[in-house]
């Protein structure tokens, strides 16, 4: 059973969404619908599965429906049609109390525009989720302080959000989401306002957290490198439609259409592609010159062994952990794999 399952979800914004549904089902696209009915298609027949413990990254241009999608998971937005199943329960079946309980304990969220409470101090903001869970003040403050430290904001705990810079505010939002220690984290462009150094640091922290705690994370970003670094799976949205879901390598090696192609065009492929992806198996590699070989591990990224190969103008022998030869990569192969698009 998947942790989160989204089945045929439609979301239409406007006065009378139901009246537009037939048109959308028949395949009218976002522009046509807007022009003819004045309704905005937020999501158009989106289905996907997110497994426990994985980081699912959602990408797409501005206005493609990423924030709308993530808001469906904790029902900040109700779908016009379709179902959202979290841990086997349809979230639409919750009554008020159940929904509140679900939000308090199962999910936490980082908001694109931070969504901090301007009248609360940093520590009160960070402790908000715990406060809602009904924890004692002492415990709230202790946990909140830990998280404030984790995002590097110690010393600012008694400031108000408006006294902080954008990046600092974003980290407060991050700490607030981390504090409740919920299974599922929804992160809407959680790192977008951070400078490159802190951003990279936060990405690393998130990866460490993942390897330790195995949370289920839904992460929205505009930055392809970030999505490749963090994502176990990546979903790409275009005008409300989910155009492709796959592993980072899938997306880069086999983009589903021109939209995805345009997206991955500028990516540093050497950073993403592992040796085992492009190697030729031992059977097919008779034509490769094996006199001057360099050994690489199958899980190494191209980036890591590229300089060696280029300098010595040699071919690669790919081995697994225990040293068995799995295949070969010719110098030429390497070049084409880096430029192919």
């Amino acid at each position: 059973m998947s942790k989160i399952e989204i089945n045929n979800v439609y979301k239409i914004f406007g006065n009378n969404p139901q009246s537009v549904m037939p048109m959308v089902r028949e395949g009218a696209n976002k522009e046509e619908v807007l022009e003819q009915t004045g309704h905005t298609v937020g999501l158009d027949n989106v289905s996907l599965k997110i497994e426990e413990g994985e980081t699912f990254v959602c990408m797409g241009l501005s206005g493609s429906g990423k924030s709308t999608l993530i808001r469906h998971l904790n029902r900040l937005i109700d779908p016009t049609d379709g179902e959202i199943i979290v841990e086997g329960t349809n979230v639409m079946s919750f009554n008020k109390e159940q929904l509140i309980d679900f939000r308090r304990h199962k999910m936490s969220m980082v908001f694109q525009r931070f969504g901090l409470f301007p009248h609360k101090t940093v520590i009160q903001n960070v402790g908000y989720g715990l406060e809602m869970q009904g924890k004692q003040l002492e415990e709230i403050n202790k946990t909140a302080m830990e998280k404030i430290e984790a995002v590097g904001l110690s010393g600012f705990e008694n400031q108000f959000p408006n006294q902080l810079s954008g990046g600092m505010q974003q980290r407060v939002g991050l700490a607030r989401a981390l504090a409740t220690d919920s299974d599922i984290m929804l992160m809407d462009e959680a790192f977008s306002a951070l400078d490159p150094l802190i951003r990279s640091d936060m990405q690393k922290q998130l990866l460490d957290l993942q390897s330790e705690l195995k949370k289920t994370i839904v992460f929205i970003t505009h930055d392809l490198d970030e999505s490749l670094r963090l994502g176990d799976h990546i979903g790409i949205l275009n005008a409300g439609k989910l155009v492709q879901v796959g592993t980072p390598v899938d997306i880069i090696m086999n983009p589903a259409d021109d939209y995805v192609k345009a997206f991955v065009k500028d990516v540093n492929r050497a950073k993403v592609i592992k040796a085992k992806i492009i190697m030729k198996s031992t059977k097919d590699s008779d034509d490769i010159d094996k006199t001057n070989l360099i050994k690489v591990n199958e899980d190494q990224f191209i980036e890591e062994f590229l300089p060696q190969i280029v300098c010595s103008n040699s071919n690669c022998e790919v081995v697994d952990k225990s040293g068995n030869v799995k295949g070969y990569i010719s110098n030429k192969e390497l070049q084409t794999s880096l430029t192919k698009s």
Partner: protein
Amino acid sequence: MEALKKNKKIFFNIGLLAIFVWLLITSYSQSKRKPDNIGELLNDFSWLGGKWPKWLDLPLMNWINSGFKTLNEKYGYIFEAINNVLLYMLMLVKNFLIQAPWPLVILGVIVLTYFASGRKIGTTVFVGFCTFFIGFLHPIFWQKAIETTAIMLIGIFLCVVAGIPLGIAMARSARTRNVILPVLDLMQTIPSFCYLIPGIMLFGLGAVPAIIATFIYAVPPLVRLTDLGIRLVDTEVIEAADAFGASKKQKLWGVQMPLALPNIMQGINQCTMMALAMVVIASMIGTRGLGDEVLLGLQQLNVGRAAEAGIAIVLLAIVLDRITQSYGETLQERTAPNTKKGK
């Protein structure tokens, strides 16, 4: 059932039409000037030309008068009770302020301003002098100003008690808002004498109809600003509260109200100013206070006296305005510390 839902608008309009026809028929049959025979109207069409025909007259006046009479006769005890409660509250406030030594009252105002304004010395001193000058202009003004203030305080108290919950209810449901908004429009546009006079008939001359009138006149801005203040809270902040599982109550008291407070304070400030204006007008129905000094001055053609009383009213307005306004500003600074102090 389904058909009824679909054609809701049509049914509604048919209903309105029926009411209109019924009004026409009853007005015609109750009219004393109607022609002897309805047939005459169909033979002789002269009523269509020239003046408005005398028989085409909705007897709203009679209806209201008779309704008012039964109200007074049957439910008089309710108004009596309201009257007594309000009078008692008024006496309490008034006697307290009048019996206190005047320097103590001024001191009280100064202390109040000091804390409300977030310890701003300038505002505090200014307000202190304004208060002093009210009595300084004419010794009798001191007591009159206190009488006026007492009526206002009770009026504002009623406004806050009724207005803020009403504003909250409006912010929460669009339907409630659609019902209440026209009522507020009515309260703000209807000439105040239209409810001052019935007020006298129900409560007698004096302070109580003035309090009621003050309430009707001053409550709309408070309701509107409470509603607006709550709805203006950033949607993503509300979403954040929702996302972490705040209940409706926790959201209202923990997030919406604190963030709407500057607007609500603005509403109370507006409410105060309008209440003062109304209390002055109410002097014409025999309410005692600074307003009757103006009236006296005018009746005696004593321009100086009227001007003195006018200035006293302005001073009182300044004092009340500064206290409520600066409290709102202090709040705003707290929630939006971006506008840093010391600039």
